[in-house]
């Protein structure tokens, strides 16, 4: 298994530059995403790794403009396959969603419509985007269910979402997302709600389909283990900023940003039972009142005066690696 994706000269599929998302309410303004820049090449899996409130899901939804328009303020540029997503008309946006770009969610029970059968829902998407007859669309739906390895797929076409187990529902949602051969797949914690034995099945399936179909994928997760199973590159988000980015193997072997290091140290995997876990102290900042400098500085053991004065600029200590930390050279935790 090649851990690192081999960079090619192909033009980027997704280019996000200086994306900023704010949620404005009567009471306050939440700075959910604060200047995020990244790109995804065709066929590449980028994992956005972060804890709750890091802005990872908001970033993903901004790519499809799925955020409530009334109270959301978006700035920056988002380009998918050369199209400026933020400038698209509603009709163009509908063509983009489900056609060029598809999304799978954490909870398929709420993402699937409970009053239609699985077959009808997949067929409906196919008909809308491809303009084919219902018979053709249903045949395609069957193919898709077989593609995502749903056992006895033909009879499952006639099942309603509530009649399926969690794992099968998630597979059905993946089938629906793949129905129009998207070039970009957005996945928002699609395995988080699944049991361990089912999660690994879905991960392996997604990895395989992504390779076969050559989809660019952005996979949002809070779970380092999931990222290690599926990512080519990882972008670690904290308080609405990408604090570190790089190939998955490099980041797991040699995390640069103190937050990434802290996250890895506090993720329980075979630690010494007789010792405390090296937890990161404190809790993430309030997005309504971000500290002026590095948002992680208040919890960081390496923080110095300069960390508090300005948001650290990205640094590129090695090819393909980026970290927003002014103390990069400082030796790690003793």
């Amino acid at each position, binding site marked *: 298994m090649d851990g690192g994706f081999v960079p090619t000269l192909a033009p980027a599929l997704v280019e996000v530059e200086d994306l900023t998302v704010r949620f404005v309410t009567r009471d306050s303004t939440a700075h959910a995403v604060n200047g995020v820049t990244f790109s995804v090449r065709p066929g590449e899996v980028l994992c956005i790794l972060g804890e709750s409130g890091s802005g990872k899901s908001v970033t993903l939804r901004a790519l499809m403009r799925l955020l409530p328009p009334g109270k959301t303020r978006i700035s920056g540029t988002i380009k998918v396959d050369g199209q400026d997503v933020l400038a698209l008309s509603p009709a163009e946006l509908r063509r983009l969603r489900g056609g060029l770009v598809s999304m799978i969610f954490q909870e398929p029970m709420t993402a699937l419509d409970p009053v239609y059968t699985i077959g009808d829902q997949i067929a409906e998407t196919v008909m809308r985007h491809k303009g084919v007859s219902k018979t053709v669309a249903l045949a395609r739906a069957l193919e898709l269910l077989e593609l995502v390895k749903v056992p006895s797929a033909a009879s499952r076409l006639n099942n309603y979402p509530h009649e399926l187990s969690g794992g099968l529902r998630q597979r059905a949602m993946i089938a629906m997302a793949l129905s129009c051969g998207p070039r970009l797949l957005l996945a928002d914690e699609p395995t988080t709600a699944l049991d361990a034995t089912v999660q690994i099945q879905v991960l392996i399936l997604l990895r395989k389909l992504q390779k076969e179909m050559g989809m660019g994928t952005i996979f949002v997760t809070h779970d380092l283990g999931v990222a290690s199973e599926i990512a080519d590159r990882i972008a670690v988000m904290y308080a609405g900023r990408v604090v570190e980015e790089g190939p998955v193997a490099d980041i797991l072997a040699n995390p640069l940003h103190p937050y990434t290091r802290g996250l890895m140290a506090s993720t329980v995997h075979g630690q010494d039972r007789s010792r405390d876990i090296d*937890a990161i102290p404190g809790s993430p900042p*309030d997005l309504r*009142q971000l500290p002026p400098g590095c948002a992680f500085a208040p919890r960081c053991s390496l923080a110095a005066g300069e960390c508090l004065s300005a948001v650290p600029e990205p640094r590129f200590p090695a090819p393909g690696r980026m970290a927003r930390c002014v103390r990069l050279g400082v030796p790690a935790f003793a």
Partner: protein
Amino acid sequence: MPNTMILPTAMIEPAAPKQRGYWGSVGNRLRYDPVTVFFGLVVLAIILAAIFAPLLAPFDPYKESIIGRLKPLGWKGHWLGTDELGRDILSRLIHGGRVSLLMGVVPVAIATVVGGTLGVVGGFGGRKVNTAIMRTMDVFYAFPSVLLAVAISGAMGGGAMNGMIALSMVFTPAMCRVAETATAQVKNLDFVEAARATGAGTLTILRYHILGNVLGPVFIYASSLVSVGILLASGLSFLGLGVKPPTADWGLMLSTLRQSIYVNPVVCALPGVAILITSVSFNLLSDGIRSAMDVRM
């Protein structure tokens, strides 16, 4: 159990930036809602006018005048004119507010206590208790509320007291259902189970954990019922089932002035305007309170 235990200071979490209780935050949100504040002031003015009616009214609301009947606005110091018996409209409107408000508020208060209690008991009690209470309430639900109010006060005979009893009976089932729904929701939350796990009895749990969480929705619903109460009370009086003449009451005024609508339409419409303003103000105020209370961070 040892009383002291030292934890590394790093484990002590930093202070969250702001600190304000639930009701504090509700008040704060209300403050920045000009519509609600405005109609809150209107409601306050109406209530104050009703309380201090004898001081505010420029004339005796019951003093009739043969020559001064159905005079237009501003006639001889009667700012809002006179009615068909020559009584001052403004004074009657101010005094009439007492009856209308009373008939709007008292039945709601009774329904809140009675229906709320039944609802909490029904929601928290077992299936049998719930069925007994809620199916009884459903019987009342089978009738349209206006029809039910008319039927009850018709059966008991008119009068302010019977009108209020009728309205209480109309509101109680609705109140009961709101309380029952809220209770059933709260009952299934983990903190109630946690309270049971500490060994607390039913009454203690009701008192400390259920009531506080049910009062909010019940109160919001009650405040929206007040405007309905005022409307229904006026309707009963209009139909002759509420207060009896010559008592000053908006619905009754509307009913008696109706016959003079071709003589002086403006004056005839005034009691209706009073009902409209009061009911709309109560409604918008309760809407504002509802949205301020709804937000949970």
